[in-house]
């Protein structure tokens, strides 16, 4: 018995030792011969690994010259996948042919062919798959087309916040192919309006930085879908959740007319925008008021317990007679601290700094409030937290403007729960409008306010898109007032 135990001990030790010695580090790029991979899943995994390693190689550089879209993302719109990634995809896909590969692997194979740049094979595979669908199989046809659209656009975002389980590598997006697929998709009878809307929306988003004419066309079709809805459909949550996209779509579609009207007066801009929105939202006042942006409303004064970076303590914010930008900083923005330089937050910081540099007379007010903690520090006293907010936003992130911080009154749930419940502060209450325009719901909600204290605009794709043009117009108007100022 004892001898057996010792023998087994030795055997186990030997196995452990040899296994440890046999370990090798996995090095990137993929050091294995991917041409030997036998399944499409292995190929997609290998492509993902190499793509990740390639994308993570560049050193991040802290500078304010970030373009509106980081270089990597901007390049994505036009450039092919990095050569190393494509090479892996090509080597790995050699054993598959679009004309003969098994159709049960349709979606991953399509993604693999697109990653490898073998678009002809992808087309052949898609054609075979569509041929499989029976003439009465509308739902199946729609599903196949929908999958192919996402693969060709490289779009892994689904409306419900889910993402595709399939890695997508369309870089650049195959816009022409995707447009024809979208056209086929929206003509399938069983496709509901929201799916049609989203398809045009995805096409528009993919085309925005690569093919503006195609993007405009897709936006127009998207808005046409919205305009064709019944009042009942407009009251649905599906419509409400797309109000933001509709707003941006209107700005893309009617940008020239809207900016022309703003050159004339804020009132003209507001009137034109309401007319545009009315075309989409219908005549239902609940829809009109509930989901419209609060443009044309008077901008409430900002209250604060602590002001930082304010030159003149006697002047209120927004500054009367000046063009103002009011930006709310929410607690959700703390998550930005842990993101990398290509994150939405850091792009937004850079965009705001660029706006301030370009328009030195623009009055920027950053609005914050205390929460009883700051990032990972708790519980700082309110004045210490306000100082931390100043340090984080003005000193470390170099955000321009005046920082207004309100001390947030709160109460606690009784023990044993004990959670802190913040009461609403005046700034948030005053700048929340309608049912959906609630300040804490948004990251960096900005309000552009004209010289007369009227909210001109609230929805921007970023601080670099549309906003500078509008600020420029307002400032020019300040210098050269329109001839007829009656409707301002």
């Amino acid at each position, binding site marked *: 018995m004892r001898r057996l*135990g010792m023998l087994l001990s030795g055997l186990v030790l030997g196995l452990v030792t040899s296994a440890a010695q046999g370990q090798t580090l996995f090095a990137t790029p993929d050091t294995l011969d991917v041409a030997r991979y036998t399944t499409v899943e292995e190929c997609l995994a290998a492509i993902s690994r190499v793509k990740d390693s390639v994308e993570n190689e560049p050193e991040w550089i802290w500078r304010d010259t970030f373009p509106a879209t980081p270089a990597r993302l901007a390049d994505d719109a036009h450039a092919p996948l990095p050569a190393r990634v494509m090479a892996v995809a090509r080597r790995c896909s050699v054993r598959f042919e679009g004309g003969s590969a098994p159709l049960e692997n349709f979606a991953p194979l399509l993604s693999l062919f697109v990653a490898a740049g073998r678009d002809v094979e992808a087309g052949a595979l898609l054609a075979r798959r569509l041929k499989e669908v029976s003439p009465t199989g509308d739902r199946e046809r729609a599903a196949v087309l929908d999958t192919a659209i996402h693969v060709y656009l490289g779009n892994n975002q689904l409306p419900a916040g889910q993402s595709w389980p399939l890695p997508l590598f369309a870089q650049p997006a195959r816009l022409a192919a995707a447009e024809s697929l979208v056209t086929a998709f929206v003509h399938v009878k069983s496709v509901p309006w929201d799916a049609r809307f989203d398809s045009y929306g995805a096409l528009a988003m993919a085309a925005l930085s690569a093919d503006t004419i195609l993007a405009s066309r897709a936006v127009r079709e998207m808005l046409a879908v919205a305009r064709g809805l019944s009042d009942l459909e407009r009251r649905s949550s599906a419509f409400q959740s797309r109000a933001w996209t509709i707003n941006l779509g209107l700005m893309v579609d009617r940008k020239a007319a809207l900016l022309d009207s703003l050159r004339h007066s804020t009132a003209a801009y507001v009137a034109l925008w309401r007319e545009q929105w009315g075309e989409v939202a219908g005549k239902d006042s609940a829809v009109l008021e509930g989901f419209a942006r609060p443009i044309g409303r008077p901008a409430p004064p900002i209250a604060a317990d602590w002001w930082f970076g304010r030159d003149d303590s006697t002047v209120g914010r927004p500054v009367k007679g000046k063009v103002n930008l009011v930006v709310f900083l929410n607690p959700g923005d703390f998550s930005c601290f842990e993101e990398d330089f290509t994150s939405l937050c850091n792009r937004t910081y850079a965009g705001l700094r660029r706006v301030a540099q370009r328009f030195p007379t623009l009055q920027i007010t950053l609005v914050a409030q205390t929460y009883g903690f700051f990032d990972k520090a*708790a519980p700082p006293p309110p004045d210490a937290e306000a100082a931390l907010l100043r340090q984080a936003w003005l000193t470390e992130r170099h955000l321009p403007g005046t920082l207004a911080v309100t001390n947030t009154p709160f109460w606690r749930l009784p023990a044993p729960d*004990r959670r802190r*419940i913040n009461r609403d502060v005046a700034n948030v209450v005053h700048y929340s409008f309608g049912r959906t325009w609630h300040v804490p719901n948004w990251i960096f909600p900005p309000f552009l306010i004209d010289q007369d204290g009227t909210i001109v605009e609230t929805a921007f794709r970023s601080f670099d898109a549309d906003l500078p043009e509008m600020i420029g117009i307002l400032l020019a108007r300040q210098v050269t007032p329109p001839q007829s100022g009656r409707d301002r």
Partner: protein
Amino acid sequence: MSGLGRFLRLDDSLRFLSREECATLVERIRGFAQGGGKTEVDVTSWWSGELRWARNRVSLASDRRDIRVAVSRGLPGMTGLLSPVATNQVDDVSLAAAVRAAERWAHRMKYYRPDIVAPVPDFEYTKPAIWSDTTYGLTTEERGRMARALVDPVEAAGMLSAGYIEVRAQGTASTPQEKPLMYAQQTTAQCSMTVRDPEGRGSGWAGASSYDWTRIDPEGLARRALEKCLASRNPVTIEPGRYTVILEPQAVHELVAWVVSDLNKRQAAENQPGPLNAGYDTALRLGRSKLGLKVVDERVTISHDPMDPALGVIPFDDDGWGPYPVQAVTWIDHGVLTALSYGRAYAVRELTDNVPIAPRLAYRMSGGPTSVEEMVATTKRGLLVTRFWGVRPLEQGLFTGLTRDGLWLIENGKISKAVKNLRFTDSPWFLLNSLEQLGEAQPVFSPDAPAIVPPLKARDFSFTSLIDAI
């Protein structure tokens, strides 16, 4: 290769790293750091000696050990707690490589990581009873002799046995935010065995675990498993349905452990549907848990005190924001939910303080005055359950699993016959709301975390199908 490499060899007298060895290792690692800043190191080293047998013959005897060194680097001007780089190689080249990798990660992080982190609270961590020289000293030969002693009576009775003995020792060290080294060493021991009729007509089981091998009575376990096997032979079939059940402590533990698991998730209890979720408060715009509400029978109290001699655990925990003490907690007090665990992140952001409640699976469930014999005597028709097996969640709060190693029908206050195993589909939360009687709480087999649990009698426990397996 430095001197510490010797710990990877089996024939050394030290099988895991002592406080002094950890301190030396930490200093060596800090010596590899470049560019200033601070270096945080966590070291976990362990040894395990095990013996497994089946069909009355030893099938495995081994001694194993490993080490995990996790290194985080903070560059000057940042105190962020970064994800560590881990290695189990302690030679100079490997440690230096780990430090370099941690520094590369820190460089990538440094630009957007604020220099603001809640300080690790100053605390004197307790020193629970979690170390036993006897456990650490149980040699391969002694484990072998023990197995022989367990198998012999079974073999003599013409039965088959399978079992497992393991003794384990572990040293855990942490160096949080420049504070002095925190270190704890712990032993654990377990012994369990199943006895089966060679013709597959009956099965019995018994097991025990403790930090201290002397608290385990292997011969008693063998006797019990054999008795259970003999008594469970030739089971009859009964209809599935709702039965009054008398659950032995092990069976109770296999259900209540899931309750304790739920108690360790305050955020989930507030934000996800489940037995401890009270829904979304639209007025306050936040999810509510059932804290402060009665959730089980008022005779039930579930608590944990690391200083309880039978419930000791490593006295500090770390959720990524730095270590904090494991303190005594009463989760459920006379049926009322009084605490749910949360880490420092939750403490800071939701409670705006810095004092978390450490999660843990060790627990004590309060008992009652009734013996199992009395429970049986007061039952008109019911089932006596030795333990459950394969318990898994179906949906929030609902579980399924099988009875195993001894299930008996009780009729008119007496055990009348062994019955075939059944599948149950029920909730431990329902069980704890359907109590009739509770017995004296006692340690159960729970190698991962000690537990003290009573036997109980409950009504209307739902068995949903018949299982052929013995």
